[in-house]
């Protein structure tokens, strides 16, 4: 059996109703870019890498998972988008002992598989997700010891499934003042904020329901669903809530302790260094734009935030501060 050492599942797609994996040659690269897609972009840059790629049935991931060792997930990061989650993943990725997979499209393909493949039951998706994370969490360097996954923001709605797949893996949900998040999307709208980019069923809506919403209302209600999904879990005493305002200080030592990670002085130094830069564009220094975003927020943004999002975020914050968190 080819052990696919140095290869990474880059994409999951369906060929004649069969789920397939498109593999890329990762070689010695580490996942240090802000997003998974940026790292795998390097796996298709050279013409040889572009042309010669393994294509296997998804079941092959199961064979690999059974036969090749891999790191178990150390911690999961969920978030409402534009709220500092990339800063956390970038701080973690700065430490060579951590594998950090950030918003990987193959994970998304599995979590949303039931929208295009009616055979993709929850049980099957749980199995596929375990196989996939086993392939993503393979140790490629001897120092790699911990394995973190930052999910896409809408994956919070799949928290029950993800927790069934990986019971006991400590997860966090990070959120931020709604108006600040909405102002970030007003400047550059995230894909999930555009109707029909994601199947409305992800949020429990149908097409007809969608037609009643204006663009901005759609976006804020998507964020509302994401935060409600995290809140439902928090009410059950699950997960750890993190407010953007706690960054970056909460990462070390609080989150490291929460995730059970031994953190040497060099690791803390590497994380601190990264926290001084813009997480999504690390050539730029970090600038706190909180006051600016609040100042320029329009009355309409404030209104829809009040209507659809503030209440949920206030309860998240109350739970974080209260004894129940």
């Amino acid at each position, binding site marked *: 059996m*080819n052990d696919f050492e140095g290869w990474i599942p880059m*994409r999951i*797609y369906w060929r004649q109703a069969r789920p397939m994996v498109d593999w890329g*040659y990762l070689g010695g690269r580490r996942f240090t870019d802000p997003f998974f897609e940026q790292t795998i972009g390097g796996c*298709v840059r*050279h*013409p*040889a*890498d*572009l*042309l*010669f*790629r*393994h294509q296997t049935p998804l079941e092959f991931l199961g064979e690999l998972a059974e036969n090749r060792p891999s790191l178990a997930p150390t911690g999961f990061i969920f978030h409402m988008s534009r709220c500092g989650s990339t800063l956390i993943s970038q701080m973690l990725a700065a430490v060579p002992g951590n594998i950090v997979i950030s918003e990987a499209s193959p994970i998304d393909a599995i979590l949303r598989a039931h929208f295009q493949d009616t055979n993709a039951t929850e049980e099957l998706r749980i199995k596929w997700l375990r196989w996939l994370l086993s392939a993503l969490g393979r140790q490629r360097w001897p120092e790699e010891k911990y394995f973190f996954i930052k999910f896409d923001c809408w994956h919070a709605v799949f928290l029950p499934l993800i927790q069934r797949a990986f019971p006991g893996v400590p997860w966090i949900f990070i959120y931020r003042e709604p108006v600040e998040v909405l102002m970030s999307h007003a400047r550059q709208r995230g894909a999930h904020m555009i109707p029909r980019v994601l199947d409305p069923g992800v949020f429990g809506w149908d097409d007809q329901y969608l037609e009643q919403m204006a663009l901005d209302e759609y976006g804020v209600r998507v964020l509302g669903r994401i935060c409600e999904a995290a809140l439902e879990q928090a009410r059950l005493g699950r997960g750890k809530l993190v407010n953007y305002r706690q960054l970056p200080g909460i990462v070390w030592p609080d989150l490291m302790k929460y995730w059970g990670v031994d953190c040497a002085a060099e690791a803390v130094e590497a994380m601190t260094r990264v926290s001084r830069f813009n997480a999504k564009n690390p050539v730029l220094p970090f600038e706190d734009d909180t006051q600016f975003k609040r100042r320029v927020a329009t009355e309409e943004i404030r209104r829809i935030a009040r209507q659809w999002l503030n209440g949920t975020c206030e309860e998240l914050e109350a739970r974080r501060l209260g004894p129940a968190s």
Partner: protein
Amino acid sequence: MMNRPMEQSGERLERFSQMVLADRQLHEQLRMAANLESFIALAVRLSRERGCDLTAEEIRAAVQNRRRAWFERWI
């Protein structure tokens, strides 16, 4: 080695791809090409040595198609 009768370009490329993916040294050799032109020249030679007889035009077209498919993967 000879081409199989009536084997189309896509089939020859697929056969060569399978050889590359099964042979780590061959794969690494192709990955060492410094740019597209030297990759094409190398792939033509190595495919010919293995009876797949890919032409420079076929390899260039395949690279362009894969690149387009990659960029259009979400469409």
